[in-house]
């Protein structure tokens, strides 16, 4: 059972002409759905453009004061996180809210995540796709960060032949690297392309070995360092094919950080302040507030997957 690498749905952050054409179809799709929206259905296709003008429906998120009373949303979310961690796991529900108008397409989230989890070539947990809408000179640029949706009804977990992947009570869909056999069924099952496969590659191989005469082995140590996903220390080492090499990999809301009182890496670094995170089980939380926005939507709502990632369109 071998799936060729080329067949993998690895999201390509670059928008080529080909997938622009594809998106154009999806936009058409979106327009139909927009009509449904008026009838009470909320849906948005992956990669679809925000056709609603930015100024039409500004969500009045906490007012922006101009002085020392300015509250840092990261600090607020950290306080909320500490509050949530005092509750039993079953009573908290981690959700993410991504404000697409605040996303500036800088991709700091993609790389912060990659460094946090020391991701190898081909593995990406949080791509940001970009699209250009309109014709010169009336053109807009829109971005779509795409972490794992942490679905309440995840299509990826039932197809796992070894139940290595499952949804935790707090809403996070995880992969048990010790169980995963790398069959990649889950990659195909995910309608959001949120999973990628770890083929055991390294950025600095083989070129790094070639250059060892210049500086030597320690230079590439970062590719072999211990990582702490799911709270367990693991190393990816060349020539030692052990987990997570060969496994399916995905965003896990940085559980190892969250459960230690830290925000997910993408949230902490989001330059535009577009990515917000917290406990939906806490009605006083920032995310609870934002999910009540008139701009709220989820990706592919019609599939019934019930994502825990909400977008503000």
């Amino acid at each position, binding site marked *: 059972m071998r799936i060729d690498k080329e067949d993998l749905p690895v999201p390509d952050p670059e928008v080529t002409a080909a997938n622009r054409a594809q998106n154009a179809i999806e936009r058409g799709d979106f327009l139909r759905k927009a009509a449904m929206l008026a009838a009470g259905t909320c849906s948005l296709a992956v990669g679809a453009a925000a056709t609603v003008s930015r100024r039409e429906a500004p969500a009045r998120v906490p007012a922006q004061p101009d002085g*020392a009373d300015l509250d840092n949303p990261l600090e607020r979310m950290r306080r909320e996180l500490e509050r949530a961690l005092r509750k039993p796991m079953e009573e908290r529900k981690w959700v993410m809210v991504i*404000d697409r108008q605040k996303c500036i397409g800088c991709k700091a989230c993609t*790389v912060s995540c990659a*460094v946090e989890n020391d991701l190898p070539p081909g593995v990406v947990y949080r791509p940001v796709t970009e699209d250009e809408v309109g014709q010169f000179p009336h*053109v807009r640029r829109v971005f779509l960060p795409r972490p794992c949706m942490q679905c309440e009804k995840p299509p990826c977990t039932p197809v796992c032949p070894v139940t290595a992947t499952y949804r935790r009570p707090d809403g996070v869909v995880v992969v048990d690297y010790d169980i995963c056999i790398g069959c990649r069924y889950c990659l195909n099952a995910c309608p959001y392309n949120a999973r990628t496969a770890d083929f055991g590659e390294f950025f600095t191989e083989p070129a790094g070995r070639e250059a060892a005469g210049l500086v030597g082995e320690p230079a590439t140590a970062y590719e072999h360092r211990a990582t702490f996903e799911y709270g367990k*220390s693991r190393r990816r080492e060349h020539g030692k094919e052990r987990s997570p090499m060969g496994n399916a990999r995905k965003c896990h809301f940085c559980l190892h950080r969250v459960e230690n009182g830290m925000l997910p890496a993408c949230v902490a670094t989001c330059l535009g302040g577009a990515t917000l995170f917290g406990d939906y089980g806490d009605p006083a939380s920032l995310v609870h507030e934002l999910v009540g926005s008139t701009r709220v939507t989820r990706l592919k709502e019609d599939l019934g997957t019930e994502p825990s990632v909400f977008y503000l369109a």
Partner: protein
Amino acid sequence: MNQPRQEKQADGLSRREFLGSSAFVGGMAAFASQLVGCRAFREMNSGAIGSYALADPKNTLYTTCLQCHLACPIKVRVWEGTPAKLTGSPYSPQNYLPHLPYETSPDQAAPADGKLDVKGQSGVQTYGDPYRLRRVLKRQGPRGSNKWRVVEFNQFIEEVVTGGKLFAEIGDERHYPGFDEVYALRDRDLARRMAADAKKVGAGTMTLAAFKQQYSADLDKLIDPDHPDLGPKNNGFVFQAGRIEHGRKELMKWFTHDSFGSNNAYEHTTICEQSHHIAFKQMTGKTHMKPDLLNCEFVLFWGTGAFSANFGLTCMAEKVTTGTISGRLKTAVVDPRLSNDAGKADWWLPVKPGADGALAQWMIRWILENKRYDARYLANANKAAAQADHEPTWTNATHLVKIVDGHPLQRMTAAEAGVGSDNEFVVSHRGKLLAVADDPKRPVEGDLLVDATVNGTKVKSAFQLLWDEAFGRTPDQYARITGLPPRLVEEVARELTSHGKRAAVDMYRGAVQHTDGFHTGCAIVTLNMLIGNFDWKGGLQVGGGHWHESGGKAASIYNFKKMHPAKMPKFGPPISREKSRYEDSSLFRDAGYPAKRPWYPFTGNLYQEIIPSFAQGYPYKGRILFLHKGTPALASPAGDKVIGMLEDPAKVPLFISSDIVIGETTMYADYIVPDVTYFERWATPHATPDVPTKTSKVRQPVAKPLTEEVEVDGERMPLCLETFLIAVAKKLNMPGFGRGAFVGHGDFHRSEDWFLKLVANIAVGDKAGERVPDADDAELALFRQARRHLPPSVFDETKWKRAVLPELWRKVVYVLNRGGRFASFGTTYDGEYMKSRFGKAVHLFMDDVAGQRNSLSGKFFIGYPAYRGQYDSSGKPLDGEGAYSLALITFKEPIGGQSRTISNYWGNIALKNENAFVLNPVDARRLGLADGQLARLRSTANPQGVVDLGNGGQKELVAKVAVSEGIRPGAVAVSWHYGHWAYGSADVIVNGRRIVGDRRRAAGICPNHAMAVDPILKDVCLTDPIGGSASFNDTFVTLTPAVSS
């Protein structure tokens, strides 16, 4: 324990049901055995996940990034001695909004991570680049052949200090100069006397004969005894730095200027955005201002933005996005290409490349015509008048300017007008002349529009000059030049003038990297001046500044300006002739206009001009080129022209490069001395004016050095710039290094002897009572534990302690534990004003500029904002597009820097593995090009579309086409970051072994090598004669279909 059951419910399909229905052939037995593990995992995870070792404060150090010049304070999580994860520092106002109180302990700050962009995050791979250099390399073939052998550090120092037939081993019998030979004038007192008298020779107040007679015994120490004002032979040493920042910058000058006595120490600013600094400096005296983005209601970003590069992305982005979403802020962007900012802005003005100055004049015209300017602010002619109106600043808009032979030459003095003294200027107040007193009790206001004759001299107010300039073209003419519709420009001009003081125009690189960059920059500052927004909350701000690490303030302990034991004078012009007037030189006395190459009285750090001047020997020949962290061959427009110069030892006799990797220019060096990355060294960078609170950043060693550890004078240290400078200085017995290097403050043997004194100055602050607290015992213990991975050659507490006064040590630790010093967010505002203020005059008319002539044409420069199109070094308008129909512009993606991020696989390869020619579909059709197709870039300067790398081969200017609606027709945009031919992308031979390059690092294109060459000089790019900016955006090119080679 209940989780498996819950899991079934959530999935709607139990594990057993799944296994029963599966056609999977993997074998049930295997599943059964693994299920045990599965259950164990879930049980393990039913409670909290394990602790996170990287979050431990003992594995955390604070320092300052250098992936771009924004230089963010960062938190480095170290694992087994190497940087594992980087985030913004929560103590830093650039990265956490608002930032944590400075008093927060490192333990409390541990879980708080600040923001950091892609470049910053990827820094792990700058440190961990397998192509980094460890030991000194000496070339083993002709320059550029990339054949090297390793040499011992002390042998290298011996060779470059002594000089001689250094390459006899490869059959080259040429004499190479050493430092010893170039360090000709060593007597500080003699140098001072000679410098003073040589200046008189230049000015024509002392004869050459008299000079020669007086210094007959020492004429051999001069570059040219017939032109003594060119200075001593010492000027033959040129220190050219690409990226160097405070702390190191002062050390560069300490070594080059003060100790060695050469007037040649440079940064790279003119290939960045120098004309913007010079425009600000001439108009305000400050070199940099930024909008107060937290309170602006409208910002016009000009050739820049808050979302990609600028100064910079990380600190500005959130202020704009939150402002926009809350409804407070609207934005507009001037850029021929739809940047991420433009793609999200309320207005996009896709101006024709090179027409920025015309657009600014058009907006000025509309504002004047519709009386949308702040007339009351502009009427204030002095400080007293401004204060009466509660305005922090005032302007010389009303001051009268003498028109001599049709040229607005100088402001008229009150003495000339017969109304006061000759150190006062003059205004017309309701038609009556008044002296502009510098007297806090005598407010003076003036009429804005004055066109008159005073005592027989024609005069106009500065405002009248602006008016005449702006009205010199009709809106139709402006529309044709800029390619923009009048309605759009009017809308934006109206918006800019609809928010009182709470609006601003921010500019950067795009607006000013033109030959008319200075005047465009001035016109943009003028747009701010017309609404009088300086120092107002929501207007333009100077930023919070910093505590002065180099000392010289009331409370400073170490005054670096006065600590040098034998400081040499600056003697002779810099080889780039910057900050120097041709008319003051004996060369002018001999030859008059035109000068052989331009002189640049108003600007500095003229990067693109250094090597061509060095090679041409004008105004004198260079002897030793020391390039540090720079790559002019790659990063300068027409940078390929320097390759031939660098390859010729007759033009560049000795070439040493300090680099972390063998870069595009370093590959042509005789010797490469490895530097460390910013994780392994010191600096004290300053903050962008976007930061409104006082900020002093500290960079310090946080990771074990990957370069060779060497011994200098009994001290062990890693190879790096400082080690090189200390070793050379000690070998030459140069004052300012070694024993007694710091008058009254001991010796300079090691890096920390220099840098910890800077940190100590930051810790004590500028004024009495500003000292930071002492680190307590717990913090001191943490300080040591967090550095346990650093070798004694880097961190030896006794040696660090020895560098500062004993009573300052714990304060230094307090600062180092936080990676700098940061004033609290509460110090940002003072009522309706910024707390940190500029508070001075804005010069709409600039006497210095108006009184200076172009050294080639002999014609006066224009001393107020004006638009004259693009021109060559003599001021002659450039030829039009000719056969080349596309205007080339460049831009930065938020994912990379200009020349040094290709080693960052996460950012520059995984996210985007090459750049492309961004082209409007109209042009693509016209040129027969399709999206994704390979094309070749051609221009007058490079008709073949091939870069000649000399001994390094050639590089094709070929990349893919990206068809986009996000660019105006007639323009083509190319991003940086790609198109490398070295920097780990090509093979090199070291000690006979081939080290294969990583071809991924060679992808894409660097557009510089199609850029226009100055038609008069022919060996350097087009340059703004006033601001010095290298022109990146005034070249016409074309694209032709290409096949991949």
